[in-house]
């Protein structure tokens, strides 16, 4: 009940602060979306304060070409280890889930390496998705001599270059960013100073998110453009220096394509030459087939915050969580999936506010 009081207090402040303005906030973290949705935060916010989801779900931004590659490896008899999130993401023809291969869901890359160690006769490939938070775990495992039958398909991406590219498009009508707390735990807050927009780093408990939103609305309304930290217990200015050292020991920055986006400069990670022996693509001679993404899918615009899922002609028709066309419909944190599942809850916001 105390939590409820505090949340309502924050919501009231937000409403007062934002009165008369149209505010659109982008977060770039699937887990923020999850919290927002699961605790009904949108139902607490006034109509004129909108929260949209940016390119913050690693599953959503993994292009079909990379899915096709891991499916190809599965079909060639490699043991594929992956996080459960990626299981249903569709490639051109199939998802891992629908492929014929030997697919293991792991909770950690270190389970995948252990599996390879315990099964020296099998070839084990780990599908390494994730942003700054996850990439260091890949580095840590590669730095501790995994066995020869282990390799990774590196699909790591970096958040700030994507935000930069996004803002350069001009085409995104955004008032400010709620920054991803766990990404910043590794990368620190400094890097985000380059963006001259209101930004607040937030945690993931419902009240932490409410608190971050409150700080961000306040900053927007007050006309400031800084990086504020509402998650100071975990996020240091410099981030996790050891993790960053390990990252740069194993990886170097590269240009990379994002699903829904073109190639974004310096937004990806690739293995340095001395670790290339763990590169599954090189090891098994797989080339990523760039190619047309599915026609009609607006993932692109949705991730940029200029379209809503309901603007997509395929939404709920050709594209459903059961037969997703774009990745935004795949992840439980994908914008389309969330609108499909909880869409009606948006209505209940207003019902709630109108009837009370």
């Amino acid at each position, binding site marked *: 009940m105390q939590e409820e009081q505090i949340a309502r207090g924050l919501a009231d402040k937000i409403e007062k602060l934002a009165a008369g303005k149209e505010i659109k906030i982008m977060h770039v973290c699937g887990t923020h979306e999850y919290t927002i949705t699961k605790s009904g935060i949108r139902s607490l916010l006034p109509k004129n304060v909108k929260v949209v989801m940016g390119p913050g779900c690693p599953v959503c931004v993994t292009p079909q070409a990379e899915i096709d590659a891991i499916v190809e490896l599965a079909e060639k008899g490699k043991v594929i280890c992956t996080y459960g999130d990626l299981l249903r993401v569709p490639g051109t023809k199939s998802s891992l889930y629908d492929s014929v291969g030997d697919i293991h869901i792991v909770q950690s890359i270190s389970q995948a390496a252990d599996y390879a160690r315990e099964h020296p006769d099998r070839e084990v490939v780990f599908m390494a998705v994730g942003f700054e938070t*996850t990439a260091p775990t890949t580095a840590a495992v590669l730095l501790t001599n995994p066995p020869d039958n282990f390799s990774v398909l590196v699909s790591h991406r970096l958040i700030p270059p994507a935000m930069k590219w996004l803002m350069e498009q001009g085409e995104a009508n955004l008032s400010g960013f709620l920054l991803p707390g766990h990404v910043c735990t590794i990368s620190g807050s400094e890097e985000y100073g380059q963006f001259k927009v209101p930004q607040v780093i937030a945690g993931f408990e419902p009240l932490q998110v409410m608190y971050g939103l409150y700080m961000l609305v306040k900053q927007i309304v007050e006309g400031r453009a800084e990086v504020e930290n509402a998650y100071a217990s975990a996020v240091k200015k410099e981030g996790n220096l050891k993790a960053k050292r390990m990252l740069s020991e194993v990886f170097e920055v590269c240009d990379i394509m994002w699903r829904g986006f073109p190639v974004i400069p310096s937004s990806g990670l690739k293995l340095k030459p001395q670790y290339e022996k763990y590169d599954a693509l090189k090891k098994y001679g797989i080339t990523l087939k760039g190619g047309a993404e599915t026609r009609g899918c607006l993932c692109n615009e949705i991730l940029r915050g200029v379209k809503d899922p309901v603007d997509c002609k395929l939404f709920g028709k050709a594209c459903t969580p059961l037969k997703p066309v774009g990745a935004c419909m795949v992840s439980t944190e994908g914008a389309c999936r969330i609108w499909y599942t909880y869409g009606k809850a948006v209505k209940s916001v207003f019902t709630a506010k109108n009837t009370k």
Partner: protein
Amino acid sequence: MEKLAAVQKMPEKVSLIHGAGGEMMQSLISGVFAAIRNNNAGGIGLEALDDGAAIPFGDQYIVLTTDNHVIKPIFFPGGDIGRLSISGTVNDLAMMGARPIALTNGVVIPEGFPIEDLRRIVRSVDETLEEAGCALVTGDTKVLPKEALDSIIINTAGIGITDNPIRDCGLKPGNKIIVTGTIGDHGIAIIAHREGFKFGSELRSDVAPIWKTVEAALDAGGVTAMKDPTRGGVASVLNEMARKSGVKIVVREESLPIRQDVRAAADMLGIDPLEVANEGKAVIGVEADRAEAVLEAIRKTRYGRDAVIIGSVEEGSGVIMKTRIGGQRFIEPPLGDPVPRVC
């Protein structure tokens, strides 16, 4: 036209999600199995899609139910497929308000299955029967080639007797909703165990025959509806009961009984405990003025100690959760079996 379109939208092939206990399973059942016209022997039949059927016999009802059990692993913390197969059917009978009398066991075994495992399952079946106070009276055994089937399947059907069957569609506005114990224990324990996650402490399935708990609730009076939150979990069952009863259910997040370790594991696995199976719990609708008495009676039983009132019934439709921070959202039935996620 609306309806025709819905039927045509049915996919061409059955997919896993059709078996996950959610909306898709409903659509498979209503799109395919509902075509059976010989679906009723005089009482509550197949068309009701309740926990079982009820057939008038003299001035009582014979309740009949069936379930296939396909769980993996077959031995898991807190139970095994043997205990599950008996509990599942005893509980479906109980959900119809019926005292379980006699069960059947239809076993399909893959070639190469260890006889010792079979013995262990049979022991567990017997212990659970003993606990539930009923008998396994007839069975069938088939063996399939190892290429055709990879793990044992047990079907258990059963009959029970009641004067007065309880439906899953009997909720009325004003009723209270009771859950007879902690939520998500079975599903979270199974997923954690199955995925090979190493948890130091013991997450345990709640699999148990809960007729005695249900009997206590019925004796206390005022029960309007019951359903056991197995596949699809509490999220699925609340939606089904609300839909069939033509009412809205409002649940308070903070009242939901979830074990600390289940919550922790669920957080780690990225899975919602409301969306996973329970195998020793009931969701019970009760008239408001009997709610406390029923709750008290349930709490006195072995498997009802953690029972709580989690919400209430209103006019309207859907299942709404009032969240801890005062927000609200729909509780939707899960689409498929939950998969662990990291982001």
